[in-house]
């Protein structure tokens, strides 16, 4: 039997207004969803063209979950988004050309060619770059929340993890520490039902990952991760609750990973019917329909947004392609930080 609360969908424009979003914000969310998907689709093409070394990962099916949570974060909040959470980087304002430069291993990528794919973040936008080991960044986010609590700041940290990573000890240690100290942190589980080829029943034995929250002394919520407004509303509630000093929340966003683990993987192990069923709940289509039914979203508005995104992507790829490959003289640089490296707004 489920222990976690199951979130309701958002019924109307007035309901979402209560949660803090006006119509313009909603169009912004639609634009961010389109841009998030666009970056990954164009990245996939670049990969097939041989322009991206290594491997390539997308968050197809998870766009509403990442954009929804990202939209609920405050300007001073911080987070540790993962490889299905491109939407968070987009909402926080990373420039798309820098993402393409990162994909292509260019000198102007956020990691200057030192790391690849979504292993990046602009710390000045309040994001901390992920590592491959999941959920290594979860207790790191808890540490940010600990700092906010020590300094008595009204800021919140958001920690992402997947249902696969929920099986590792870092998840337990991080959530337990956060629960014991009632830290201002929100845990977001991107439950896309497949950890590479491993299904959920081989990752955990409870009904929902969010059921575990009760054992750590805080609330767990399961939300339809293809519904951007439901995700936003739950994230906003949890973030504001944490900001008031009322402790952590675990939000589980239920989605389906609509592609393989990475582009080399055809996901043969996922039942075809499962893809077909979840394709009907495509996050972009759902929100587009909602906007048409509840917010008089017009063809002209949609065309304008899609045209803006298309131009942005074209310009971004062009600019990224002009960025040079890193000079090998940079190989030895930056293993150790210098005191000047601490001259950032966030390290002080």
């Amino acid at each position: 039997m489920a222990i976690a609360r199951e979130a309701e969908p958002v019924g109307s424009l007035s309901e979402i207004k209560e949660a803090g979003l006006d119509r313009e914000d909603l169009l912004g969310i639609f634009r961010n969803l389109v841009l998030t998907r666009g970056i990954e689709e164009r990245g996939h093409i670049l990969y097939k063209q041989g322009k991206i070394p290594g491997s390539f990962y997308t968050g197809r099916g998870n766009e509403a979950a990442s954009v929804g949570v990202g939209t609920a974060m405050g300007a001073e909040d911080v987070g540790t988004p993962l490889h299905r959470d491109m939407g968070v980087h987009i909402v926080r304002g990373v420039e798309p050309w820098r993402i393409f430069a990162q994909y292509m291993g260019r000198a102007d990528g956020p990691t200057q060619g030192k790391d690849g794919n979504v292993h990046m973040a602009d710390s000045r936008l309040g994001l901390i770059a992920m590592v491959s080991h999941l959920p290594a960044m979860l207790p790191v986010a808890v540490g940010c929340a600990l700092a906010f609590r020590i300094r008595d700041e009204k800021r919140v940290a958001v920690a992402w993890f997947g249902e696969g990573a929920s099986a590792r000890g870092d998840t337990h240690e991080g959530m337990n520490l956060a629960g014991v100290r009632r830290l201002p942190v929100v845990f977001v589980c991107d439950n896309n039902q497949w950890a590479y080829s491993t299904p959920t029943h081989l990752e955990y034995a409870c009904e929902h990952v969010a059921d575990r929250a009760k054992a750590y002394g805080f609330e767990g919520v399961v939300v339809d991760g293809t519904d951007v407004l439901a995700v936003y509303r739950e994230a906003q509630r949890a973030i504001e609750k944490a900001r008031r000093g009322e402790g952590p929340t675990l939000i589980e966003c239920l989605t389906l990973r609509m592609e393989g683990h990475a582009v080399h993987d055809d996901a043969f192990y996922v039942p075809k019917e499962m893809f077909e069923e979840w394709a009907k709940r495509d996050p972009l289509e759902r929100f587009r329909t909602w906007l048409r039914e509840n917010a008089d979203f017009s063809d002209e508005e949609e065309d304008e947004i899609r045209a803006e995104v298309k131009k942005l992507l074209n310009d971004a790829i062009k600019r990224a392609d002009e960025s040079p490959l890193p000079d090998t003289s940079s190989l030895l640089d930056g293993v150790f930080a210098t005191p000047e490296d601490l001259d950032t707004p966030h390290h002080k």
Partner: protein
Amino acid sequence: MAEKTYLQAISDGLRLEMRRDKRVFVIGEDVGVYGGAFKVTQGFQEEFGQWRVIDAPLSETAIVAACTGASIVGMRPVAEMQFADFISCAWDHLVTVAAKQRYRAGTPVPITVRLPSGGGFSGGPFHSQNPESSFAHIPGLKVVCPATPADAKGLIATAIEDPNPVLYFEHKHLYRRIKDEVPEERYTVPFGEARLHQEGEDVTVVTWGAMVYTAEEAAKKLQEEDGLSVEILDLRTLIPWDKKAVLASVEKTSKALVLHEDTRTGGFGAEIVATIAEEAFESLDAPVKRITAPDTPVPFSPPLEQAFIPQVEDVVAGLKDLGSY
């Protein structure tokens, strides 16, 4: 200057940093109410409160990872591992996240991890290790191993000030046994500068931590018995290490013995010996000698542990070999 134990010097150094910099906080198991398993943070919670001296759950990964997160948003955390041995639980975090974050993502991680290390009192396999060499192998981590009270105090300040993850190995066998004059005021001791523990002419001993005193006793014996003049270099920090001082000393004495309490294969001594072989070969009058613990876990029973940890007589024998070569 007052005489302080090695332990008191660490405690004093840490307290001074917490007084001068509000960003510094301590987190670990039993560091608050209890004052730490070895009492390094005794009285800290009374002075700084429970949010700057934080009793953590038994979660080494979360403790060190939380330090990383807090450091990125402006704190200067100091984690205490109850015993250095338990850092194995946080190995993944240190090596995967903390060590690489600056290089790959441009984000410095200014944290200090205090590690009570070393054997000599029947702590057994899980309370006696000196795992410094395994961390010295990881690019991005700094490794500090003070031997004297004055260095212990100065190096903890440098560690906290450093913009990188610093592993501060404090040798438990020195805690209350070693006392010396320590300046009252705050000061720092630079990383990467060896300390000349004793000047000599005939053989160089390169060592750190508790082995400095083993080397000193052995050298004293040899001076008295054989008139052999031994130079002892205390590295103080392994990453970075003072290659220049080691090479200069070897060039002077033409014979070298590298001594450490950590196990042999892949120990940091091997790096020092290789460097001497590469860069001072022409100066050598004898093969470089290594004295280390053998490649076993640290045994519990006193005679076994004594046989494991390099003893004064082992060093005497090694130096005699070199002296007569």
